[in-house]
C-alpha cells in the first residue's frame, strides 16, 4: 500500500515539474507587465503541434523538436508583443483580457483549421522504456520533461536575478519610467520577456507532446492548470511557480487517489481560492 502512495507522490512530482515549466513563462509575463495572457495554453498547443510536425516530416524526436519549438514560439511571442500586447497594455485591463482571449481563439481555431480536429500522439517509445527504481515506475518522457522543466525554471530564475539583462528586465517591471530615465528601453525589455516566456512554452510543449495527446483544444485544459499554478506560487515569481507546480502536482495526485479523481479539481480550486483569500500574493510573490 505505501509503495503505491510513493508512486502517487513521485508521479505527482513529475507532472508537477511540467506544470511548473509552462507556468514559469506565464508568471514572468504576468509579473513583468501585469498582463494576463489567456493565450498561454494555446502557445503550448502550438509547440506540441510543432513537435508532432518535426516527428512526421523530419522524423526527429524531442532533441530536434525542443529547440525548433523554442525558436518558433519565441518568435510568435515577440510578434504578439509588438503587434498586439504593446498596444493593449496601455488600455484598461478589460482590453487586455479581450486581446489575449481573442488571440487564444485565433490560434486555437487556426490550428483546428490547419491540422483538423483529430487527436495526434507521438509514438510512446520515442524516449525509451520506463525506469524502475525500487518498484517505482518512472516513465522516461515524464522524467525528461520534469528534469528539463526544473532546469529551465532555474535558468530563467538565474537569468532574471544574476544577469545584467535580468536586472534590466526587473527594473522595467518595477518602474518603467524610472528605468527609461536610466537609459533602459522598456519596450525592448518587455519584448525580451515575451520571447523568453513564449520560448519556454515552446520547450514545455515539445516535451509534453511526448506523453500527452495533441489536439487544437488542448490549450484550454492546460491553461487552467497554468493559471492556478501561477496564482498559487505568486505572480511574477519563477521559483514560486516551480514550488507551486510541484505542490499542485502532488496534491492533485494524492486527492485523486484518496478522495476520488473527480474531486481532484475541487481540491485544487478550493486550495487556490483559500490562498487568494488569505495570502493573495501566493506562496512566494511580493505583497
Amino acid at each position: 500500500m505505501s509503495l503505491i502512495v510513493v508512486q502517487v507522490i513521485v508521479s505527482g512530482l513529475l507532472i508537477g515539474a511540467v506544470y511548473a515549466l509552462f507556468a514559469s513563462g506565464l508568471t514572468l509575463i504576468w509579473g513583468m507587465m501585469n498582463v494576463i495572457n489567456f493565450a498561454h495554453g494555446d502557445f503550448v498547443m502550438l509547440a506540441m503541434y510543432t513537435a508532432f510536425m518535426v516527428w512526421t516530416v523530419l522524423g526527429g524526436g524531442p532533441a530536434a523538436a525542443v529547440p525548433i519549438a523554442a525558436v518558433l514560439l519565441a518568435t510568435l511571442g515577440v510578434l504578439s508583443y509588438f503587434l498586439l500586447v504593446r498596444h493593449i497594455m496601455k488600455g484598461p485591463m478589460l482590453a487586455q483580457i479581450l486581446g489575449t482571449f481573442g488571440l487564444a481563439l485565433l490560434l486555437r481555431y487556426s490550428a483546428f483549421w490547419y491540422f483538423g480536429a483529430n487527436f495526434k500522439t507521438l509514438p510512446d517509445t520515442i524516449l525509451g522504456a520506463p525506469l524502475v527504481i525500487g518498484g517505482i515506475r518512472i516513465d522516461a518522457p515524464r522524467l525528461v520533461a520534469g528534469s528539463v522543466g526544473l532546469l529551465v525554471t532555474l535558468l530563467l530564475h538565474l537569468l532574471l536575478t544574476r544577469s545584467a539583462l535580468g536586472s534590466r528586465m526587473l527594473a522595467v517591471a518595477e518602474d518603467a519610467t524610472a528605468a527609461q530615465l536610466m537609459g533602459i528601453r522598456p519596450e525592448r525589455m518587455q519584448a525580451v520577456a515575451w520571447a523568453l516566456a513564449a520560448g519556454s512554452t515552446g520547450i514545455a510543449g515539445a516535451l509534453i507532446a511526448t506523453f500527452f495527446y495533441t489536439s487544437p483544444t488542448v490549450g484550454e485544459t492546460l491553461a487552467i492548470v497554468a493559471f492556478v499554478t501561477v496564482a498559487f506560487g505568486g505572480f511574477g515569481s519563477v521559483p514560486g511557480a516551480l514550488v507551486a507546480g510541484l505542490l499542485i502536482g502532488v496534491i492533485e495526485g494524492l486527492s485523486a487517489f484518496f478522495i476520488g479523481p473527480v474531486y481532484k479539481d475541487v481540491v485544487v480550486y478550493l486550495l487556490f481560492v483559500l490562498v487568494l483569500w488569505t495570502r493573495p500574493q501566493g506562496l512566494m510573490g511580493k505583497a
Partner: protein
Amino acid sequence: MMHRRLMYGTVAALVLLYPVLLSSAPVYQRLGTLVLLAAIGASAWNLVGGYAGQVSVGHAVFFGTGAYAAIAVYTQFGLPPIVGVPVGALIAVVIAALIGVPTLRLSGHYFSMATIAVAELVRVLISNWEWVGGAQGLSGPAVSRTVLDLSFTSALPYYYIFLAVLAAVLLVTWRIERSRMGFYLRAIKDSERAARSLGVAAGRYKLYAYMLSAGFTAVGGSLYAVMFGFVDPESGFGILISVKMLIMAALGGSGLLFGPLIGALILVPLEEISNSLLGGKGAGLTFVVYGAIIVLIARFLPSGILALLPARRPPPKPKPLAAERAHAA
C-alpha cells in the same frame, strides 16, 4: 432638437416592432431575441465590472444559478420554470454576498482569478450533485403544459419578455449612474485608495454592486433556461459564458449604459451568421473570425465602440449630504 427626437423615436419604434416586422424570417426574429438575452447578461455584468471596475470573469456562477433554479423548480416540483426566476435571483444574491466579502478585498488580477476559480469550483460540484442532474443536466418542459411554461415556437413572445427585462436592468443602471452610489463607484473605479481616503465606504459599495449584478445575471440565466429548455454544468456554469458577457460589455464600452447592448448587437449576429455561413464546412472558421475581430477591437478600440462617440455631458453630481455640506462649510 427635433432631429434628435425623431431619431430616438424611430429607433424606439424599430426596436418595439422588430419581431413583427420580421415575422416571416424566424431566424432573424430569433436573432433579435438572442441579442436581447445576451445584452441582459452583459448589462448585469456591467454593473460591477464596468461601473465599479471589478472585472469578474466568473459571472457564470450566477447565470448558472438562475438557469438551474428555473429548470429545477420544474423537474423537482412541477412548477412552471418562470417561478424559478425570483428563486434563482435570491440564491445568486446570497452567493454573491458570501463570496463577495472575501473576494472583493482583492484587487485587479487577483480578483479576476478568484472569480474564475470559484466559478469552476461550483461547476465541478454541480457536475457531481445528483439532485440537479449531475453531469447530465436538467431538461425543462419540452412542450408547454400551460402558457405559463413559456415554451413558445415563435421567438416573438420571448423578444418582448427579454426587452422588458433589459429595460428594467438598464433603468436600474441609469438610476444608479445618477445617484450617490454611482458617484462612489466611479471614484472607486478610478482609484480605490483615493476614494477610501475621502471617506467612501468602498468595500460596502463594491459589494452592493456585486450583489445587484448577481441578481440580474441570475434572471438572465433563468430566461435562457426558459427559452432553451435545457441546462447542464457546461452550458450553465462554463467559463465561456463569463467570458462572453465580459467581451460584449468591453466591446461596446464598459461602464457605459448602452455599451453591453452595442456589444451584443455586434457579437451575437456575428457569431450566428458566421456559424451559419462557415460552420457547416467543419473548419471552425467561425471562431477564427470571432477571434480575429476581438483582437482587432482590443488593439484599435480598447475602450469600446461607444467611447468613439463624442462624450456627452457627464452625469450630474448628486447633491451633497447634510453632513458633507457641514464639513465643507
